[in-house]
């Protein structure tokens, strides 16, 4: 290859030798070099421009082809997917033990506004205020004409209200479907069911969330779509519950009580057949909790589960039962009942003087505090404590409603001998009526521990702990039957149903210390029928006073017992119990021949 020198030195030198100016040669050389370089660059640029052109042509072809394939493909429907996870609005129903609906869902609509879509905000605000008196037209107008793009107006509408809003005809007023929790029975079993409210809300649906009671306890289960719409079956019997609430409300009014509660429980399975607490509320419109006041005064307060009271003489059955179980006494053992009984600085008196000696049977039938204290002295504090613990008086009940854990019994700090004596007749420790019903159910169940449940059980649970022997339990029931037949609870002697039970009248503790003279908690606790107990019942009245006599009577025998008797009279047939009418002379069937 022939290399061209950068400068044409030969020519320059020869020009110099000739004495000519070599600059012209230099310029000429430079120009030629420049031109050569330009040609090179032009050739290269030609190729590169071709590459660019081809690239562009290819890219445009690709875009065109893509357009073609898109145009040839079928359009898919643009689906406006709901943002986030969709809200499941399929809450399971709640039914009673016979499948009757206690809680269900109702499709309603909510009302919301999108002010940018509104045609006539002023008119819409005025009309809305006319349909819903609780809405303020001025505020609505301010909302509609302001910068808001979206606002809720009403969470739930009745069909009539919806039609009225629809008739306003404003495109900015919109309805969102809402599934609403409905309790068709109103106040019935309100405390068990609790209530439900809206959780997360969207335009197309809202989450229904349980706020109390069973609805809260089983919230996850009720919302779980995996259950396939299976309803939650409760142990409640709707007709029994209705009867109990009706009778209890009447009794509460008659006895001038400020509150009342009743529990009926199956002694074999522990199913709560009925649980009532008055005053009550309508779960469809659950009231707001009382602010700043004693929550136990609120209708929302579940006295049967959350309320803990000193339940008085109803505890004597446990003292006697334990002594019988331990073989320390027999029903006929004589107990010294001379009073008053002094224990240190503490004096125990009876309601009236029952004479110097009573049999164990009579101690319970007549409800002698002194006699019970003497019996528990034989048992001893430790064994008494263990027995009450075994009956479940030391921890909250296991009932499956959200409030149950708050029904924690109040126990003395130290189980001294004084505590032992007072606890033997039901003072010094507080428990809920449900605790008591479960303990009586345990006695009725032949001494095997019964755990209360609100869910329907078809078979009795296995492996309940034995608290006392079957014989001792049977003896105790027979003594309690005598209490009803001719003791302190004679009003409870419902013909045909052989009620066995025990009364309890406890002075209410004064929050300032000591006890009130004229405020009591009157309780009847029992099982029926006595020969083969099927149900336990507890009726408690708060501050009852019976005024039909010459002086106001507050004892349970005059207040709680008649109410309990009426409840048993009304509900025992509903529970399928067959009355056993005792046959008097000549009461049998007579064969007549004609």
């Amino acid at each position, binding site marked *: 290859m022939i290399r061209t020198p950068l400068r044409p030195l030969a020519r320059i030198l020869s020009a110099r030798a000739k004495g000519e100016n070599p600059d012209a040669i230099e310029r000429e050389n430079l120009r030629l070099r420049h031109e050569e370089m330009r040609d090179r660059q032009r050739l290269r*640029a030609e190729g590169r421009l071709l590459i660019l052109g081809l690239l562009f042509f290819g890219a445009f072809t690709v875009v065109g082809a893509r357009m073609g394939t898109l*145009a040839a493909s079928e359009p*898919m429907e643009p689906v406006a997917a709901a943002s986030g996870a969709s809200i499941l609005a399929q809450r399971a129903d709640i039914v009673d033990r016979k499948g009757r609906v206690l809680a269900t869902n109702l499709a309603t609509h909510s009302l919301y506004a999108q002010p940018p879509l509104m045609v006539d905000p002023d008119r819409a605000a005025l009309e809305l205020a006319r349909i819903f008196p609780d809405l303020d037209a001025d505020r609505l107008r301010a909302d509609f004409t302001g910068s808001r793009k979206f606002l809720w107006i009403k969470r739930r509408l009745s069909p009539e209200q919806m039609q009225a809003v629809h008739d306003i005809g404003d495109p900015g007023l919109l309805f969102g479907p809402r599934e609403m929790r409905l309790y068709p029975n109103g106040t019935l079993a309100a405390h068990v069911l609790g209530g439900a409210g809206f959780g997360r809300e969207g335009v197309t649906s809202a989450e229904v969330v349980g706020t109390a009671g069973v609805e809260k306890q089983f919230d996850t289960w009720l919302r779980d779509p995996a259950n396939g719409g299976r309803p939650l079956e409760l142990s409640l019997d709707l007709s029994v519950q209705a009867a109990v609430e009706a009778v209890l409300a009447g009794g509460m009014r008659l006895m001038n009580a400020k509150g009342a509660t009743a529990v009926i429980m199956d002694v074999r399975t522990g199913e709560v057949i009925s649980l009532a607490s008055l005053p009550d509320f309508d779960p469809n419109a659950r009231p707001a909790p009382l602010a700043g006041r004693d929550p136990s005064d609120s209708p929302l307060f579940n006295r049967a589960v959350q309320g803990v009271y000193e339940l008085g003489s109803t505890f004597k059955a446990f003292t006697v039962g334990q002594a019988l179980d331990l073989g320390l006494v027999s029903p006929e053992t004589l107990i010294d009942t001379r009073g008053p009984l002094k224990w240190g600085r503490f004096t125990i008196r009876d309601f009236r003087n029952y004479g110097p000696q009573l049999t164990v049977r009579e101690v319970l039938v007549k409800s002698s505090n002194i006699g019970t204290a003497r019996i528990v002295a034989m048992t001893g504090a430790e064994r008494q404590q263990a027995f009450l613990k075994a009956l479940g008086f030391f921890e909250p009940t296991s009932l499956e409603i959200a409030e149950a854990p708050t029904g924690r019994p109040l126990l003395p700090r130290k189980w001294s001998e004084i505590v032992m004596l007072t606890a033997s007749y039901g003072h010094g420790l507080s428990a809920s009526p449900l605790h008591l019903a479960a303990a009586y159910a345990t006695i009725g169940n032949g001494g095997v521990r019964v755990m209360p449940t609100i869910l329907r059980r078809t078979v009795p649970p296995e492996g309940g702990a034995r608290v006392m022997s079957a014989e001792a339990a049977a003896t105790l029931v027979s003594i309690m039957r005598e209490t009803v037949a001719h003791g302190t609870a004679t009003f409870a002697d419902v013909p045909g149903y052989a009620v066995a039970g025990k009364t309890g009248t406890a002075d209410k503790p004064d929050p300032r210390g000591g006890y009130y003279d004229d405020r009591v908690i009157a309780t009847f606790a029992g099982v029926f029928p006595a020969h083969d107990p099927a149900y336990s019942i507890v009726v408690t009245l708060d501050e009852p006073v019976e005024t039909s006599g010459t002086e106001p009577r507050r004892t349970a025998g005059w207040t709680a017992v008649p109410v309990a008797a009426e409840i048993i009279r009304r509900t025992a047939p509903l529970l399928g119990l067959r009355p056993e009418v005792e046959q008097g002379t000549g009461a049998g069937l007579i064969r007549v021949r004609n």
Partner: protein
Amino acid sequence: MTEMVFGTQPVRAGDPILPRWWRTIDRWTLLCVLALFGIGMLLGLAASPPLAEKNGFQPFHYVQRQAVFGAMAFVVMLLVSMMSPRQVRRIGVLGFVLAFVALVFLPVFGTDFGKGAVRWYSLGFGSFQPSEFLKPCFVILAAWLMAASQEIGGPPGKAWSLILAAVIALFLALQPDFGQAALVLFSWGVIYFVAGAPFLLLTLLAGLAVAGGMLAYNSSEHFARRIDGFLSPEVDPRTQLGYATNAIQEGGFFGVGVGEGTVKWSLPDAHTDFIIAVAAEEYGLVLVLAIIGLYALITSRALFRLMRERDPFIRLAGAGLACAFGVQALINMGVAVRLLPAKGMTLPFVSYGGSSVIASGLALGMLLALTRTRPQGGIEDILLKQRSGPWHGRDS
């Protein structure tokens, strides 16, 4: 610069301007631009009434505005196309200075029109987007620098133009307007490529661009969301892309009919970034392919004519302008068919927008001026070489 060479072209001194212009202009490109503008007006009739309704104007308010802007753009284009390359270079450099100053002062005097990016000056009767004018002017300046650097003993034009490109891209990215920034860098890349960039360096630059993209992805949420939307296989039907795709599918081959389209009501950018979707829905694939064909024709014709160009400045500036024009159209349409991640970029001459259409007119005017038929040698070049000896007294 034109080298007047004896006897190569029938260009005479004192030739009247208009006949010479008509003889030397690329009439096909001119026709394509006219067609594009006509289509833009047609689509404006379809796409802009929803916007006019939303803003409380009469339905064809924006069409009238666009017609006015279009007329202005056309005048600008014709005037510029009559200029000589030297004049083009001068107004390009002057325009660059003005547009660059305007760009620099955007953060101070600019407005974002509630769109989250400060890109405009509000002028009362309309708005002015400096970056639209900066692009063609930068191409001219960069091409001049690059061409000068090719002279023996010329200035380091490559480095200077690269620094300029980087500074402009930085200002644009600060707005933020990554699309225009990318377009400016792309134009520089094209010019450098045509000017003879080594392939190794080009590969390195491509790698750098990828790295920059990843950096933007990690640092800008706005950017990352768009990339994510592009990469996900399922198109969310509620996004602009979903609506656009659906509109193209609805349109099919011949469209749903004039005025029957629905996508313009759901897409906020139906009259600008997604106007191709409106075209596809109402007029079908036929019109879309026609639009694509027009852009392809303009770009490839310009590149083809430049292949014969001898003057490095004309070659580089023309290539840069043609490629910037083509790639902008390509990106706009590629986004609508989901070949590219969502990026706001107008379709030159077709999309609504005063700055956009006038700047496009300026760019195309420059391109037309640069691609005018000029004496290029060809066979005459060889003759020139052969005749140069006796002329200059050189030994051969």
